[in-house]
């Protein structure tokens, strides 16, 4: 039950883009076409989940035992950067077809604040789902949270790029063209997602 609540909360209620404002740059940058946004979402999904697992372990078994929590930021960003590079190299060798699909998005992901944001959130924040006593996430909960969050990212991205494909064809007043109308569209999407608040 708790996992179910985590998933619903991460995808809909606290959607990473529309409620937490993380990963906005790629969200606005590559959402012009449905195909690229699907590719980007899958790459983000893969990296967020992997990075969260690795940084959670790093934090639990290296930083906390040595009292080095203040190094979280620097340690996490280095691990994420290295991880993205490694994923790129491994993917290139192991699965060229997957590399074709995700490869071009991988370098962009290091500076996607969604990855670092989720990694930091799961090790610094206490959560309370259902009636359980508030507690820090354990490894399984962190992984589920990270995966669900990135699904939420994908959902917002795919919905948004669908709308943007239509926007490209419509007659928008000149000063609104491009980013402004996109932002106003996101605003309306965020309003729709506000309707989910309070269900968990």
């Amino acid at each position, binding site marked *: 039950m708790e996992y179910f609540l985590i998933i619903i909360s991460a995808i809909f209620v606290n959607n990473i883009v529309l409620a937490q404002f993380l990963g906005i740059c790629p969200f606005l940058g590559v959402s012009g076409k449905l195909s690229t946004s699907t590719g980007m979402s899958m790459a983000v999904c893969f990296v967020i989940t992997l990075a969260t697992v690795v940084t959670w372990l790093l934090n639990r078994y290296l930083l906390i035992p040595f009292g080095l929590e203040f190094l979280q930021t620097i340690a996490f960003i280095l691990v994420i950067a290295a991880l993205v590079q490694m994923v790129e190299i491994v993917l290139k060798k192991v699965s060229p077809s997957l590399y074709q699909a995700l490869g071009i998005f991988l370098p962009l992901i290091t500076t996607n604040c969604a990855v670092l944001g989720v990694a930091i959130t799961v090790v610094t924040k206490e*959560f309370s789902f259902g009636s359980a006593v508030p507690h820090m996430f354990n490894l399984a909960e962190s992984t589920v949270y990270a995966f669900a969050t990135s699904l939420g990212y994908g959902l917002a991205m795919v919905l948004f790029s669908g709308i943007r494909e239509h926007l490209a064809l419509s007659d928008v007043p000149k000063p609104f063209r491009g980013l402004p109308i996109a932002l106003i569209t996101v605003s309306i999407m965020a309003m729709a997602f506000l309707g989910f608040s*309070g269900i968990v």
Partner: protein
Amino acid sequence: MAAKNSILSMALCLTAVCLVCGAVLGSVYAVTKSPIEEAAAAEARAAIAEVLPEGGTISEAMQADGMEYYCSLADSSVVAYAVKSSTGGFGGLLTLMVGVLPDGSIWNTKVLSHSETPGLGAKCTSDPGFIAQWKGFKGNFAVRKDGGDVDAITASTITSRAYAKAVAQASELVLSLNKED
């Protein structure tokens, strides 16, 4: 350029940068460690002082049932407890500091952190009627809608329920502590 890009020079460069940065961070950490602890302690002290009757010496933090609490001692007997109590509110975790007298009645409460909706649930930190009712509160810790004695914030029943639950937890903790003694 060849020498500049050799593996050795790259490794040396990265090592040097990391060493310098590590040294800088280590020293800044050492310098700011006690101010950070002091700032956190001062905040905790201020919150505790606000929810407890005046006088009394505040004890060190203690743990029971997963909650943190402090005792206020006067003439070596406990006159009141300050309990840090959290529940899930509407938007996330709601954490309170609750001042409780040994008989389980409430002296005062204060919100430490919350993520309630601005203008609705977030009024639990500003709504004068809602805040004032907790001073000396005694009775059923449930909102009136559920048959209790708590006046809920308008349009924010979930936040009010969570608040009442956090206060109730604190009161129960104090009652159970006194039973053990």
